[in-house]
């Protein structure tokens, strides 16, 4: 376009010189563009590196601190690598409370919740996805309300309720309120809905009983979503601090996150080396699992967001 405008304005036929000029300008512009792209590339990678640092440095700092002596933590500007690795910090952290019991409680509660959620969510999700029944709208409304209203909101009445049931400070008391998950039902319902009706019809023509259709065909088909949900649920409850804090008054049913948070009370506010050692005990397993199966875990969590 531009070329033709130039030509008509100048009114001169395109000469060889003009052509060369244009070629020259173009190649110069190309060179400029190439350098610009190279610079951008460098900026891009530098930026990415900075980004990684923002997220990785705190963890590195945690590791570094956990191996320091107390005086070493108080050096400013800080030193990254301690002179001697003080492994004793981990033992000290572990001995601030009944950590074995914390650990067992964490496992029992997270696994218990997971198992119960599977048992309650799968059938409910299936019924909501596949059956028409009177009142299903109302009942699903209950699920949606539960999904949208945060649990932190109603801990007080639940506390009183559990206290009336004599379930405070028990595993059961920490498991039962989470025996089903609105989120799980929501996810699984979507998954069940996506399965084509043809498949069910084929199974019916194959004379399969309803329970058999559900267990042998439908549930295996939503396995990826089940794995997703299981990962999600386990990590959420393994990490949970709020409910065990609110629903326990003594050590019998307390979990790891509570134990870690309590180190500060036992050791004093500024013993960062021991605190970070304890923190590492809590974080390391999850981070290790994350880096081993990063892809699945990310998929699990992000998938929830997209569906």
């Amino acid at each position, binding site marked *: 376009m531009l070329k033709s405008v130039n030509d008509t304005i100048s009114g001169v036929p395109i000469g060889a010189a003009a052509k060369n000029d244009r070629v020259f300008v173009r190649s110069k512009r190309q060179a400029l563009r190439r350098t610009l792209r190279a610079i951008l590339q460098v900026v891009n990678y530098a930026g990415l590196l900075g980004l990684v640092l923002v997220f990785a440095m705190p963890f590195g700092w945690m590791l570094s601190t956990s191996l320091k002596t107390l005086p070493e933590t108080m050096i400013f500007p800080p030193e990254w690598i301690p002179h001697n690795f003080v492994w004793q910090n981990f033992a000290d952290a572990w001995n601030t409370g009944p950590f074995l019991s914390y650990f067992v409680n964490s496992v029992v509660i997270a696994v218990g919740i997971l198992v119960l959620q599977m048992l309650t969510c799968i059938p409910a999700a299936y019924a909501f996805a596949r059956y028409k029944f009177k009142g299903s709208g109302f009942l699903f409304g209950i699920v949606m309300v539960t999904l949208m209203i945060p649990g932190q909101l109603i801990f007080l009445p639940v506390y009183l309720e559990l206290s009336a049931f004599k379930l405070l400070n028990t595993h059961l008391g920490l498991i039962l309120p989470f025996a089903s998950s609105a989120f799980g039902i929501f996810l699984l319902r979507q998954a069940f809905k996506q399965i084509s009706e*043809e498949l069910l*019809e*084929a199974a*019916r*023509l*194959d*004379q*399969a009983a309803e329970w058999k259709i559900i267990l042998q065909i439908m549930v295996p*088909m939503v396995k990826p979503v089940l794995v997703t949900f299981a990962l999600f649920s386990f990590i959420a409850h393994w990490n949970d601090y709020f409910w065990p804090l609110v629903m326990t008054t003594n050590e019998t049913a307390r979990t790891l996150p509570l134990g870690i948070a309590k180190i500060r009370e036992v050791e004093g506010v500024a013993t960062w080396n021991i605190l970070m050692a304890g923190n590492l005990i809590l974080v390391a397993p999850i981070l290790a699992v994350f880096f081993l199966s990063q892809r699945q875990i990310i998929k699990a969590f992000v998938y929830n967001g997209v569906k």
Partner: protein
Amino acid sequence: MAKIELRNISKKFKDDTVIPNLNLTIKDGSFTVLVGPSGCGKSTTLRMVAGLEQQSDGDIWIDDKCVNDTPPGLRDVAMVFQNYALYPTMTVRGNIEFGLKNRGVAKTDRNTLVTDISEIVGLAPYLDKKPQQLSGGQRQRVALARAMVKQPKVFILDEPLSNLDAKLRGQMRTELIQLHKRLGTTFVYVTHDQVEAMSMGDQIVVMNKGVIQQADSPMKLYHDPENLFTAEFIGTPAMNTMSMKDVRGLDVQANGYIASLGFRPEQALLNAGPEVRGHVIEGEIVTRESLGAEQIYQIRTGGGVFFVKTFLAPLATADRVKVTIPYEHLYYFGPGGERLRAGIEAGAKQLVQAGGI
């Protein structure tokens, strides 16, 4: 093997009447094809036979048993679905024997049956694969095997070839015809493709808007359509029709009122000599499709645009042509689209005797 009877069947979805009143007998051992445009109720009819859909009214009989209240699994029908509906979590073997397991067939018997069937459909090497690892044609075979292994009285196929590419579709068509011959079981087949219907069925049921237009053999349908709908639905290209108002130079006497006139593209002659006695239309060739053995011309005339098909004839190059349709190949339809037969032929003959135009 079984005869299927649909008596006074109607189907409503909420307030929508999909099928008003349908009566149909599907002969024992026949290959019956239900064909019609989408939404004509053919699939619904099929699904009612299978028991996947409950009719709003009327009875369905398979052999001498009324199956209105029989659940699909106990009707002794097997179905091949449009998207195959293979169980993705099971192997090919698992898919084929799932129905047998549910019937409580013993393991040794199951194995023999699965082996036999997989030999027949050529799946033996793939028995331990998952359906996702198979090609479209192979999945189709698994779906067939899964239906066959149950040795049903009735085979129901719902547009089973629509997901295959053209070449494979042709191949599977032949295989299905052979399979039907070999098994001798009643096949009920649904398609929207009239070519598929004509090439496979021995009885074809043409449906439109929930009403059966005609149920006949392919040849009868082609040569002797009951009404305008069937005439325009069957054939490639379909029958040419024009309103009687636009017809010039044809003097027809009939008992009834003739609303439209039709002829098949392959029965019209281009630039025929005066010895052919027929109705003559002049027109202009708009397009020429040459398929080698046959040519299809689109011709514009005063009465509209027509197709004419010729075989093994040199390509007509002229722009303007004379199209002659022998009188005996003209079809007449009444105002409601019904075919008019009686009394008209005589009228046409008289015209010829009178010396024509």
